[in-house]
């Protein structure tokens, strides 16, 4: 027989155990920060602020015995670790992705919530969710097989003919690998994320206000402008930043279409680029051959910068979204 005392003890154990596990996510985040900081510390000493502002990524002469000392840390002779091109590549490709994805995603969100009947809306929803679930390597596969040749042969020359007066569209188009291909692939990947969140936020708009607007004789679009969009604006904004965060950290699809440029700042929208996330993968093999281990420490520092960046982007996104949900909750 279970006595009340035992029951109380069991409940207490259960509360404690679930609480400890729940707190685990905090521990994990702290551990990620600490271990990345510890592992990148030699690189931080060696490179200083140079890490963020230098263009040259060179892991040095691994076959000589000469070493280069800096800031109390040791690296192979001639080694410099500058990630400015990767930072720019990350920011520019994500910017292109967001610019392309926002109209797509908001259009789809409006279509799903305000325009389409449930039946058709559900199929479109399914297609969008399907796209969100496609592994990034498969999207990269499509990028290699379809997108890159299309940019190289059709889209690139066409853009140049139409927009050649804008400097970023001038210059060599190359094979199609590069900044534009990365931006397009990222746009395809973040559109479903932004669209799904936008759909959820738009659904929170109070029905009475919407019906009131229509009842006053507003057209559906005027109702969207006057009620739905103002009501959902902060939530949509949060969704966009959430998508931006995803684009900044996306690795494989970008790695497959970016051209993996090193030591090279993008010259135009067709330039080959490297992003921070993609570089962590593309440089792993060569970094592991560094006997001083400094190249690995430098990769750890890229991961650290990426981690900090993802938190700086996700915190405001989540604050905006939780505000939007709360507003919706109060109205209902």
């Amino acid at each position, binding site marked *: 027989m279970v006595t009340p005392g035992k029951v109380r003890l069991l409940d207490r154990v259960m509360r404690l155990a679930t609480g400890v596990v729940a707190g685990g996510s905090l521990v994990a985040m702290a551990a990620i920060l600490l271990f990345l900081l510890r592992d990148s510390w030699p690189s931080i000493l060696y490179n200083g602020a140079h890490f963020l502002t230098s263009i040259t990524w060179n892991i040095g002469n691994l076959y000589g015995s000469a070493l280069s000392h800096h800031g109390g840390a040791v690296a192979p002779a001639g080694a410099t670790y500058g990630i400015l091109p990767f930072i720019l590549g990350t920011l520019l490709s994500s910017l292109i992705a967001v610019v392309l994805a926002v109209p797509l995603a908001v259009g*789809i969100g409006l279509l799903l919530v305000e325009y389409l009947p449930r039946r058709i809306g559900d199929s479109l929803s399914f297609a969008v969710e399907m796209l969100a679930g496609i592994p990034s*390597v498969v999207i990269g596969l499509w990028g290699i097989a379809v997108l890159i040749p299309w940019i190289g042969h059709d889209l690139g020359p066409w853009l140049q003919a139409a927009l050649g007066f804008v400097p970023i569209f001038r210059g060599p188009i190359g094979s199609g690998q590069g900044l534009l291909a990365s931006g397009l692939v990222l746009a395809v990947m973040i559109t479903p994320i932004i669209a799904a969140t936008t759909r959820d936020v738009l659904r929170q708009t109070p029905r009475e206000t919407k019906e009131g607007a229509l009842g006053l004789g507003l057209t559906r679009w005027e109702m969207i402008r006057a009620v739905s969009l103002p009501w959902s604006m902060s939530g949509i904004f949060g969704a966009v930043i959430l998508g931006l965060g995803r684009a900044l950290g996306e690795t494989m699809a970008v790695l497959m279409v970016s051209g993996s440029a090193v030591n090279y700042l993008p010259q135009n929208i067709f330039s080959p680029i490297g992003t921070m*996330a993609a570089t962590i993968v593309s440089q792993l093999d060569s970094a592991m051959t560094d006997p001083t281990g400094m190249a690995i420490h430098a990769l750890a520092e890229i991961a650290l910068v990426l981690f900090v960046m993802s*938190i700086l982007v996700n915190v405001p996104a989540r604050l905006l979204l939780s505000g939007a949900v709360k507003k919706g909750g109060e109205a209902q």
Partner: protein
Amino acid sequence: MNVAWRHLKDRIMLGLAALMGLIILVPVVGMLWLVVSHALPALTIGLFTQVTVGTGGGLLNAIVGTFYVVGLGILIAGPLGILAGVYIGEVNPAGRFSQFLRFTTDIMAGVPSIVIGYFGYVTLVLGLGWGFSTLAGAIALALIGIPYVVRSTETALSKVPRGMREASLALGASQTTTIWRVTLREALPGVITGVLLALSIAIGETAPLLYTAGWSNYMPELRLTHSPIGYLTYVVWTYINEPFAKAQSLAYAAGLLLLVLIVIVNLVARRLVGRSRVSH
């Protein structure tokens, strides 16, 4: 303002929105068609009975490896995520600590998977000296999946009507019994949906596994550490860049298997969501 113009504008905006809906279908259909049409020549019995050799062979090692490392990852992520979700959604739903945890869980879901992979590399592969291994890969996948399980569990629990809890407690059941026999059972479709979401994300991951699981041409060993393991996403990434048609069709075949697995998982999840809607 002219009424005709207002209605025309309404039409134009609808047209634009519909255009966006059509545009997004292009990559979806394009990817499916690309992968299916290119994978067909590679779909032979050998694909499922041979391991990868050089730039050819089959995918047996990668298929088994994906099941092994992803399965283990979900075995870790599922229970931990559900327990954490129970705390946030049921034990202490209104508390400040829970509110904070909800927030950090969402932030954790936004951490790039390559960062988690690198963390696994530093701590497990190098730090604990496991080398590239199944367990290191599974733990990395678990860290990526846990936030999704936590949030779905918590959301599903918060939708269970309060009366069911009160009835159970009033009958003298302890809180533990109430959660285990009543609320969790009621929230089960939502909980499983979260686990399936984590599963489908884990199946498609590549970058974190490169840093933790490594790659192997051989059949996976049962050993959890000190033995690298193959998985399907690796084949897609590396074999598409080989200059041989056979290697490339292997990449497409691996891509097709991944898509099939993910569609199956998504369809099961949709059925569950549908069922939970019907029951209320």
